[in-house]
């Protein structure tokens, strides 16, 4: 090919072979475009210049810790959003997996208890996915119902918070590797592996394609249902993991935790340019969206903005961010 047409499409490899995989999974609008990177850089710069506590080690560690839950949930959410679905149940799964893990710690080895927490998330994801794929039910309502049911189950499991005595329970949430919290590393690993999954494996590509045009994928002989189930299962797994990590970090598992977490996760994906209609979204840019949200919260706190005004400003800043994102998209 002449290469005449300037390349508008996502290239996962450069012409000469493979290079860094680009974590763009559909459409070109969603590349973590220069402007978006600039935006995040600008946020960081402003923060560093105006809040003298911003660049302190404590605060940076805070930032790294605070992005873990939203990060994990956002990756799972992205996978579901790519199929054209949505998963509202993640906040409840966080609560359930956390409380179950904490409850089991007294009787089981900690890693096993934690595995059970993650598996519970996988289980809920499977059920969500199966209902959505097998019976063609609207993802919004299925996962909304799941939100209610799973929250109820978390309370049924234990109405009161559970605080395991074994200090080993806190390790996952508080251990650091050098200056970086282990939980942050786990989250980053999810993004990296997840990025490769979505860009370089057949099931990952199928998930992206399903959101673009499920009928076409079906006609291509790919089992759409199974991939939809897979997507919700991944989201459930991420939420289960997030619940375990959060419980370990707080040291106490509460059945009431995680209310409205799904909203931040969805916001991160969309700030990163994902389309809720499916088929378009980027792993990198979603990570950028997570950064934006965490930075906003952190900054508002550092500036000592009062809670209500924080809310007012947070909404306005999100609008500003997506306006910038959009201008950049239109210009390109």
């Amino acid at each position, binding site marked *: 090919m002449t290469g005449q047409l300037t390349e508008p499409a996502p290239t996962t490899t450069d012409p000469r072979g493979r290079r860094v995989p680009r974590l763009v999974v559909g459409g070109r609008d969603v590349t973590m475009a220069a402007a978006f990177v600039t935006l995040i850089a600008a946020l960081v710069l402003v923060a560093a210049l105006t809040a003298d*506590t911003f660049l*302190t080690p404590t605060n940076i560690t*805070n930032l790294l810790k605070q992005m873990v839950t939203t990060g994990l949930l956002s990756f799972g959410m992205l996978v579901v959003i790519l199929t054209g679905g949505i998963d509202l149940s993640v906040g409840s799964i966080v609560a359930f997996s956390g409380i179950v893990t904490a409850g089991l710690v007294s009787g089981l080895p900690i890693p096993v208890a934690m595995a059970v927490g993650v598996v519970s998330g996988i289980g809920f994801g499977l059920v969500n996915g199966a209902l959505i794929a097998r019976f063609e039910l609207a993802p919004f309502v299925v996962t909304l119902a799941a939100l209610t049911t799973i929250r109820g189950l978390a309370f049924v499991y234990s109405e009161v918070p559970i605080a395991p005595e074994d200090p080993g329970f806190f390790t996952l949430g508080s251990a650091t590797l050098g200056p970086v919290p282990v939980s942050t590393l786990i989250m980053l690993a999810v993004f990296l592996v997840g990025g490769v999954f979505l860009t370089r494996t057949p099931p990952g590509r199928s998930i992206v394609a399903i959101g673009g045009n499920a009928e076409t994928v079906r006609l291509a002989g790919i089992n759409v249902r199974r991939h939809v189930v897979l997507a919700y299962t991944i989201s459930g797994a991420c939420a289960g993991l997030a619940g375990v990590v959060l419980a370990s970090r707080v*040291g106490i598992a509460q059945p*009431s935790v995680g209310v409205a977490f799904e909203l931040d996760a969805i916001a991160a994906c969309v700030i990163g340019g994902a389309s809720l209609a499916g088929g378009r979204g980027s792993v990198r840019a979603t990570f950028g969206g997570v950064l934006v949200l965490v930075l906003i919260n952190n900054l508002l706190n550092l500036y000592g903005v009062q809670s209500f005004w924080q809310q007012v400003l947070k909404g306005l800043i999100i609008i500003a961010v997506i306006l910038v994102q959009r201008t950049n998209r239109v210009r390109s």
Partner: protein
Amino acid sequence: AGLAGCSSGSGDTATAGGDGSYTIGVANFTLGGPYFSGMDKAIAAEAKKKGKIEVISTDANGDAAKLASNVEDLLSKNVDAVIISGGPLESAPAALNAIKTAGKPVVLVDRKFQTGEYTSWIGPDNEAIGRQNGEFLSQKLPDGGKVAIIKGGPADNSIGLARTNGVKSVLQSKAGITLVEAPDFGNWGSDGGLTVMESLLATDSDLKAVFCENDAMCLGAQRAIADAGKADQIIIAGVDGQAEALKAILDGTNYLVTGLNDADVIGAMGLDRAVEILGGAQVEKDTVVPSPMITKENAAKYQNPDGSF
């Protein structure tokens, strides 16, 4: 909590109108917090202890309108009295009016409503709890220092405000003490306490103490402090007497004090009160339940493995 503060009215004598068997409705604003579910359980447990009392409990899931309709539902089931565990609610005129119209008695537990007519209220003196914490902290910090305050929020609640005001009223006048109010709320939960504390640690590295409007937030704050390696530098004061907090105090951690606000006690008293009223007894309108200060010295005595809170 076997040891009730005061007037544990002997409700089983209440047989004024019948054989002493009553149905009592409980309208919880929310059960989504250990304190509130503890309260709900305490009411049920006390009823069971008494026998002949049926309790119908409802949960409004934090929705004031739902609370009103739950009360309506209870009334349409013809309960004899209603207990409202109003949580962060300040008032519920529609619910109170409906109960009044139905001619039933209503007992408020924990939260006293700012408006509307009720038959009786049982709850803590939140400002006193705050002052008590303030006194304690000022003693522990003879050389002064920075004290952080973590609020539960949202601010449409008076008890948090009362507790914080209590702390402030004592500490503000103390020389050498500076108060830092966290800008964001901890939402009464451990996870919220944790993140708010983390932010505080980043903005104010020289904190000497932290006061949270309840124990759940303190427990999260304690983790953040531990993670930051400042456990021997910052002391913690809370409110409620939540089981985990009692344990932390007893274990000799940096969690030093809490003010008892026992849901078990208040719940039980609330049910007793309702039964007394149904039995035709003349009762005190407002009953303040004392809130003793709990420290390492006396914490063991407040631990109650069978309690719900």
